[in-house]
């Protein structure tokens, strides 16, 4: 959208768009290994119902999905398929890496056929540790992702240069740019992934 690209969207409209994007997260049904059962328990069971957070697990094709939860071991033979499915998703997309297999290869760290961490293939927003993480851990991951989306700066995302930057970071950069030269310019914090339970994010 023209306005968003040039970054001159009024703050309230950005806030509305961020809120709507965070409350209607569609995720498509795709599980890899044992974490998929915990993800299924989170998505499809009355006890840890994820639909109440606004995450709707209805669609079955990546075209209609907003975020994907990589739940399970990504093997070398599966890696190109993961990359392709990531590229098939329409643009404002996010990814949660669930379980230690997806985070860093987990118990198969020395296997000859396992990719050590899915972040070598696709950019990951939230890491959920555990083998398998409890459904509540996944719900916390989703809540953190929603917080992140609420504070996201869409203009930076649509320009697609730095991946994720939060609104606060952009205002900080603009304040620094507007400030007189004497003040030392601190670079915008680059993408630092959140680890569940790793303290509040701004």
């Amino acid at each position: 959208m023209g306005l968003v690209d040039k970054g001159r969207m009024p703050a309230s409209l950005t806030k509305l768009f961020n809120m709507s994007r965070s409350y209607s997260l569609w995720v498509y049904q795709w599980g890899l290994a044992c974490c998929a059962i915990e993800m299924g328990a989170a998505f499809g069971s009355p006890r840890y119902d994820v639909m109440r957070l606004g995450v709707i697990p209805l669609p079955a094709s990546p075209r209609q999905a907003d975020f994907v939860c990589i739940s399970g071991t990504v093997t070398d033979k599966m890696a190109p398929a993961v990359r392709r499915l990531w590229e098939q998703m329409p643009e404002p997309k996010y990814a949660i890496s669930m379980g230690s297999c997806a985070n860093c290869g987990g118990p198969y760290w020395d296997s000859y056929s396992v990719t050590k961490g899915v972040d070598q293939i696709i950019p990951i927003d939230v890491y959920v540790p555990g083998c398998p993480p409890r459904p509540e851990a996944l719900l916390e991951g989703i809540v953190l992702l929603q917080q992140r989306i609420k504070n996201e700066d869409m203009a930076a995302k649509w320009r697609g240069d730095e991946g994720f930057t939060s609104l606060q970071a952009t205002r900080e950069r603009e304040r620094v740019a507007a400030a007189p030269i004497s003040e030392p310019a601190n670079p915008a914090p680059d993408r630092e992934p959140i680890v569940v339970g790793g303290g509040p994010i701004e």
Partner: protein
Amino acid sequence: MTVLSDRQQLSYIASQAADARLNVELETEGMTLNIGPQHPATHGTLRIICRLDGEQVVWAEPSCGYMHRGYEKLTEVRTFPQVTTLVNRIDWLGSFANEVPFILAAEKLMEIEAPPRAQVIRTILFELSRIANVSLFLGDLGVQMGAITPVFLAFRDREYVLNLIEGATGGRFHPNFDRIGGLKDDLPAGWIAETKQVMVKLREFCDIIEDLLFGNEIFQSRMRGIGIIPADVAKDYGLSGANLRASGVDYDLRRDQDIAMAWDKADWKVWTHPDGDSFARCWIRLQETRESCKIVEQLLDQVPAGPIMTKVPRIIKVPEGEAWVSTENPLGEMGYYVVSKGDLGPFRVKIRSASFNNISIVPWALTGVYVPDIITILASLYFILGDIDR
């Protein structure tokens, strides 16, 4: 339970072969459909390449390996206790059941046996993991057939069983609770009473699923007479578990071999079904869930007092030798061929997983079948990806 007469079975098999040939005269150019690694019906990353003629499958070939994690190579560089941690992630739904055959093989090599209390508790946890595994199968069956609601019933009642397993072992479904020579520690207080209540809930769950899903005419019309597997073809491919018993073969490892577990202390029935079609396989798994509830209830009253662990040296060195132990896992017969050379870790472990053989029949079973029936047959064969690809 209408029994499909032999004539019907033979006519079905003949029709399968005929349909495949029928389309050759019309020389319609087929289409290769790729039910790819990401597909809602495959429980994970199984890919089936099938050549279609219209909606009919002329040739189908599963391509595995998308979940191959190299278990047998990893077991060679780990010690015995570490292998149990690794091994209970093969069949990730009934995962306590994976550890038991490996531990029994190691105990057979060391010529030691778990104390009676540990054996009974192992059998109870084995049957609980079977209930957890098959109850999700019954719910997932509904999703494959298009009914969205049964899976929520299954997950809700499965949570009760997972609470029990977590109460006893600490892990929801990767407990790693089994040790060579016994168990990690004893059952918590009040666990037995709570398990009895949960078993009552599970029986209600089986009744609900029976009339909600199995009693539904659409479900029956989708499942009956589809994917018929005669007994000798099943034996040829090495199908095991409910798939074998659905073809009329009365073979259940819990009853037919004497092993250091407590199945003989409870009286329960082995269900078989003469049809061998998809409905029979699912129906048998439903009855087996009820039998498991019965076994658990009976064994709960016979948990003997006594130690939980025999005297085992701190650093376990299994003496040299080879041992094969297989048990009736929720998916079928899972066995371990452990070769040990007297070191800390095994020299070679051949893991015989049930789903690998169960899925090797898919090329035979899927020829001449409609596209929706691919999903029916796959759902009724019931595989777990970790089990196929190891």
